């Protein structure tokens, strides 16, 4: 019998880069599957895709896939990606980041890239912790949850990533989970199609550190939590406020239009650049 490999498999650097570093059961691989399927559905030429990341378990993603990939320094993925996009606007630039990479050390780049509205799709894997370094609390660790640097509970507030992106100027903002994987595939697809800065927050789980420290059980248990706490935005509109307590919304949360940065930049050039003949004449 002929075995037809899943479409995701055909995009992996399976000969050189595997096995991967992720713990069995981690949500990052599920997110990667959804991203690959979204790209495949859109029939993008893989040579036109540039995947950029910083450092973290989530930021390892580009290492494993057969696109143009750039694995950079911790927190700087969006800045590197801005350079890539400006230099070659034809590339579909996708940034993979984590809550630590994107919002702690890279928080400054995050707000400014949103504000600039450059055509970059950012997938931020939110597992509420610094997974790669062993479960220290991060800017998305909820109040009073435990991290290895907060053994009796985190006393800081967590970021609302989607609201942050929206207020900073992102033109497309969506949230998914690794449990609702078909929805995730759909919103990643929309995000890639959006002209402008798009952000997809992916609620994921780090059962190895965060889950263990907070007694949230296995990867499966943590995914069940996602199932029970995520409310699709359309459904939420019909629910009374008490039903939304402790829940979070999933789906497309924000989608507006604003001039895209690279195109605006081109307009400036078109308007003020002296045509070559003239410049010769004026010598």
């Amino acid at each position, binding site marked *: 019998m002929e075995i037809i490999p899943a479409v995701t498999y055909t995009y992996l650097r399976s000969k050189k880069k595997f096995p991967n570093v992720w713990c069995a059961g981690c949500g990052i691989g599920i997110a990667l599957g959804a991203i690959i399927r979204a790209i495949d559905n859109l029939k993008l030429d893989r040579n036109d895709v540039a995947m950029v990341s910083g450092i973290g378990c989530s930021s390892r993603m580009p290492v494993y896939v057969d696109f143009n990939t750039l694995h950079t320094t911790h927190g700087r993925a969006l800045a590197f990606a801005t350079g890539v996009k400006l230099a070659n606007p034809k590339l579909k630039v996708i940034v993979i980041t984590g809550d630590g990479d994107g*919002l702690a050390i890279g928080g400054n780049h995050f707000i400014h890239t949103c504000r600039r509205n450059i055509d970059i799709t950012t997938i931020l894997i939110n597992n509420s912790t610094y997974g790669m*370094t062993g479960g*220290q609390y991060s800017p998305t660790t909820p109040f009073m949850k435990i991290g290895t640097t907060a053994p009796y509970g985190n006393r800081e507030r967590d970021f609302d990533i989607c609201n942050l992106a929206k207020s900073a100027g992102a033109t497309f903002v969506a949230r998914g989970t690794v449990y609702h994987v078909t929805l995730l595939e759909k919103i990643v697809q929309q995000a890639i199609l959006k002209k402008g800065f798009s952000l997809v927050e992916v609620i994921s789980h780090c059962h190895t550190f965060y889950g263990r420290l907070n007694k949230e059980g296995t990867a499966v248990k943590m995914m069940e939590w996602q199932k029970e706490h995520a409310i699709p935005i359309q459904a939420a509109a019909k629910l009374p406020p008490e039903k939304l307590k402790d829940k979070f919304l999933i789906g497309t949360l924000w989608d507006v239009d604003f001039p895209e940065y690279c195109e605006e930049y081109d307009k400036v050039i078109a308007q003020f650049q002296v045509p070559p003949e003239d410049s010769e004449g004026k010598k």
Partner: protein
Amino acid sequence: MKKVIEGSMAVAEAVKVCRPHVISAYPITPQTHIVENLSQFVADGDLKSQFVNVESEFGAASVILGASATGARAYSTTTSQGLLLMTEVLFNIAGLRFPVVITCTNRAVSAPINIWNDQQDVMTIRDSGWILLFAEDNQEAADMHLQAFKIGEHPEIMLPVMVNMDGFILTHAFEPIEFIDQKMADEFLPPYKPELYLTTKNPLTFGILAEPDWYMETRYRLQKAIEASSDMIEEVADQFKKTFGRYQGGLVEKYRLDGAETVIVSMGSVVGTIKEVADELRDKGKKVGVLKIRAFRPFPKEAIYDALKNVKNVIVMEKAISLGATGILYDEIKAALYGKPSQPKISGFIAGLGGRDIPKESIMKVIEKGEAGISDNVFVDLKENLIGGK
């Protein structure tokens, strides 16, 4: 009391008895265990300190700068990319003469990404005005923290100190460690009382603009303070010995230098292996010794010349390079010997980058090469098949 504990725990315990008021850090491998242990001490009330888990190393260095400006004893720890990200603040801390202490758990720098040990991180910030100390084992690393605060906080020095310990090789190694008694630590390291600090009683300003007519003098004073710290490092090592009975050397440690014809100079944990090699060669009748550099800044050129002047072959082995030039320690030792009456032959070897093991056999080969002729910038144990064309 001796206990077998992890290097990171030994450092955390030592930092605890130094009673820092403020600790700030951002996690990075292989430093994480130090921070996690410290945050546990603070959370448990075993250490009365403010622990701030900031959003980057840039933040961490800035927090300890600010804390120190108010007269607090402040501490941080990092490595590699984290240290490089701190660079701007490191220069400011030294320029403002704030005696904070940072542990650098030495690690290679990107690209390519590598989390294992070498010493390129600290060697890259060597001109920042910090006192740079290097530990060979975990006891020395732990003890160095008490010494570091004492050296830096001396009114005539007032400089930040970085304690360097090799990532993983030391941070994650379990060794028997003599715990430091709090009472003895308090005697050795009294509370920090700076002359000038930010207070509402006597408002001051730090960090103002220095115009060309007096900026240079501030740099001169900084240079003089680092030079003056040489004596202080020796003095504090002696005092430490008096209080705790342990002595790992002052600026340098001389190991089996009596009548040595060949001496290997190095820093950090690899010195332990080199000492073993020297012992074996001595047993065979070969006159080999080791010079361990404990303080790289201030650079102890007198002590180095004194130790090497009667030697035939000097072999410098180091875990960093100034790309486009040579090994940094090698270069500086050559400069220390220049123009002196005796001129030993000197060779430089780069080893152990990005966590490449340095086994005894490799050290033996390095010695053979160094004795046979003059070697310059030799990369030890390169894999020829991996070098490729470009």
